[in-house]
């Protein structure tokens, strides 16, 4: 269980995140959604202390994140980056093995685990000896996910992981991710600016605006009663798309 209390970040005198509090229960997928500059990525990075909070607390399974050295904390939390962040000088296998090497796993165990997670993200283990630059964007992000999953974390943080992919690839990766999450019972916090993606993936959605948490609820609750104009505007696009799609389907049937 993740408890975030009054999390605040100032850059200079400018508040980027202001007193954000929420709780994520075990096995739950929370999506942080908001337009760019809303503070959602900063909030995510404060959870594994990639960014140190100015104030507030994060506790993971009852342990205060501040009580653990940052790098030790991060080794236990899977993180998928917006820019993928695969190391270009390492092979696919070496990239996926990085978190395991940091935890001092022995070589044989690392090798079999790498093959296991590559299968989990539906990649052929024959890619092991390839370098990231030789792969497609979708393959690269699958490897990014595999790397985050390698050390069997209970918690995953994902920062707009599928934002740069074409719609088909993106859809396939979303589906794989949902499937993996269900199988492993992962707790996950997922950042996106795309409300459609949020509605499709989330158990619960937290909407952020100007560094504040403006509404939190299940997709149904949000659709039923948006808290303010901002949330309403964010919901506008998926609603309109759904309507247009319904009409199209109805037209084709008639």
């Amino acid at each position, binding site marked *: 269980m993740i408890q975030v209390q009054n999390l605040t970040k100032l850059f200079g005198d400018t508040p980027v995140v202001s007193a954000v509090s929420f709780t994520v229960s075990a096995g739950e997928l929370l999506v942080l959604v908001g337009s760019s500059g809303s503070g959602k990525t900063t909030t995510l990075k404060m959870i*594994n202390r*990639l960014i140190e909070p100015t104030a507030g607390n994060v506790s993971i399974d009852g342990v205060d994140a501040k009580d653990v050295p*940052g*790098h*030790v*904390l*991060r*080794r*236990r939390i899977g*993180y998928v*980056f917006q*820019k993928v*962040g*695969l*190391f*270009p*000088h390492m092979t696919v296998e070496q990239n996926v093995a*990085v*978190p395991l090497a*940091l935890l001092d796993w022995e070589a044989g165990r690392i090798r079999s685990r790498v093959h296991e997670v590559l299968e989990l993200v539906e990649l052929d283990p024959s890619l092991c000896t390839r*370098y990231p630059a030789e792969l497609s964007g979708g393959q690269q992000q699958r490897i990014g996910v595999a*790397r985050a999953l390698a050390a069997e974390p209970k918690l995953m943080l994902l920062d707009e992981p599928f934002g740069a992919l074409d719609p088909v690839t993106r859809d396939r990766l979303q589906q794989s991710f949902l499937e993996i999450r269900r199988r492993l019972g992962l707790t996950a916090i997922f950042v996106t600016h795309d409300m459609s993606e949020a509605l499709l993936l989330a158990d619960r959605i937290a909407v952020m605006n100007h560094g504040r948490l403006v509404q939190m609820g299940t997709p149904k609750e949000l659709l039923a009663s948006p808290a303010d104009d901002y949330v309403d505007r964010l919901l506008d696009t998926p609603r309109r798309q759904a309507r247009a799609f319904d009409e199209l389907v109805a037209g084709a049937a008639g």
Partner: protein
Amino acid sequence: MSEQLALLPGYLNAHLQLTLFALLLGVLISVPLGAMVARVRWLEQPVLGVASVIQTVPSLALLAIMVPLLAAVHLQSIGFLPAFIGLVLYSVLPILSNTVTGLGTVDPALIEAARGVGMTPRQQLFRVEFPLAMPVIIAGIRTATVWTVGIATLSTPVGATSLGNYIFSGLQTRNLDAVLVGCVAAAGLALTLDTLIRLIAVGLARRRRGILGAALGALALLYVYTGITAARELMPQKHACVIVGAKTFTEQYILSEIIAKQITHETGRCTRVAQSLGSTVAFDALRSGDIDVYVDYFGTIWTTLMHRHTNPGNRDDILREVSRFLREHDGVFVVGKLGFENAYALAMRRKQAEKLGIRRISDLAPYAPTLSIGGDYEFFSRPEWQALRASYGLKFAAKRSMDPSLMYQAVAKGNVDVISAFSTDGRIAALKLTVLDDDRGAIPPYDAIILASTALERRHPEVIAALQKLSDKINGDAMRRMNLAVDGAGESPSAVAKGFLEKLWRKQ
């Protein structure tokens, strides 16, 4: 040429020792410093600034300035150390600036990814930042390598053997073969090392284990080989080689060879010649024990070390006084006189001298206002010139400073009328010049004397005995002939020395 090539292994090995270990230390200093500067950004300006300033010091001056600096802190001031430190300082800037640049251009997203997977700052540096910056860092090392190999040829004047020995002695004795061998070998070495390092970069970039392994292996072999030879030289040797010093002119090259061969012949000890030392460098090197023996001249010690301005006249008195002074003052032992004098002397064309009826300097004085005089770079600021002017009232129409090797041609061709010749120079006879008699004794005697360290005298009396056998064995004519054989006929100092000694040994 084959005689020059015989010297190549020794010179090349010494050159390799200097450059390889200077580069290694340069990398060990610059890369960590660069990593620190890349983290602590405000350090960048001051650190790179200092490195740039070092780079702007002319390389010969940088090496030369190490001599007094090291002497001031009582370290070996002649030989390997000053050259080595100078080269290390020179290698820092390219490696340092490329390390800073290379680390600075690593994508911040990758550094965040490295943090994100749980790397410590140290792991980020070694597993991500250095590997990604490596091509740029290696480019810096390549630049430093080429510079260092080139600049190491300037180690010769501070007493470190290098390929520069070919170049300095070759230019001095006009042995173009030697100059050529030195330049080609230095260029070849620079290209070889540069290629090896480039292959490492290629192997890394193209992930070709074979290329990488071969290049690293070759480089490692070079390091091991030079390391072993260096260690062997550093080992305290029971029969350590006697090091014979030589200043930067032909006569000194010949005499150092004579001394070295005489020691080996008589005692079986190994010897090494430290060539092309600057004039005061040679004496300082003897005093600090970096060389064991060399030849100097009465007058130089009398005027520049003892600061005497009077001409003592009697040679035996001078020998006694110089010996006592050097022993008490500098811990230097005077072995004995070689039997000739190499003094500053005024020389002119024989025909002109005969026409004007000039045999002595006092005959020259009335004609001086119509004549011009040429001297080497230091002559007109030396006490000898002051003394000549004071004693004879010399006033010339024109004074010209020039390179000593050009002086003789200049007077022979009539560009000047009188020159400050060295009395043993073979070109005096060859170019039909005549030396004017110093009838008022203005110039002190310049008898050549063998100087040895008192340590050598104490520990190896047999070496001193061998050298004493050279006492009064070389007269002025013999020295002039030997100088001319090198300067005029292009023989090597070593061959000339051998010829002289073989005659001497037959007589004994």
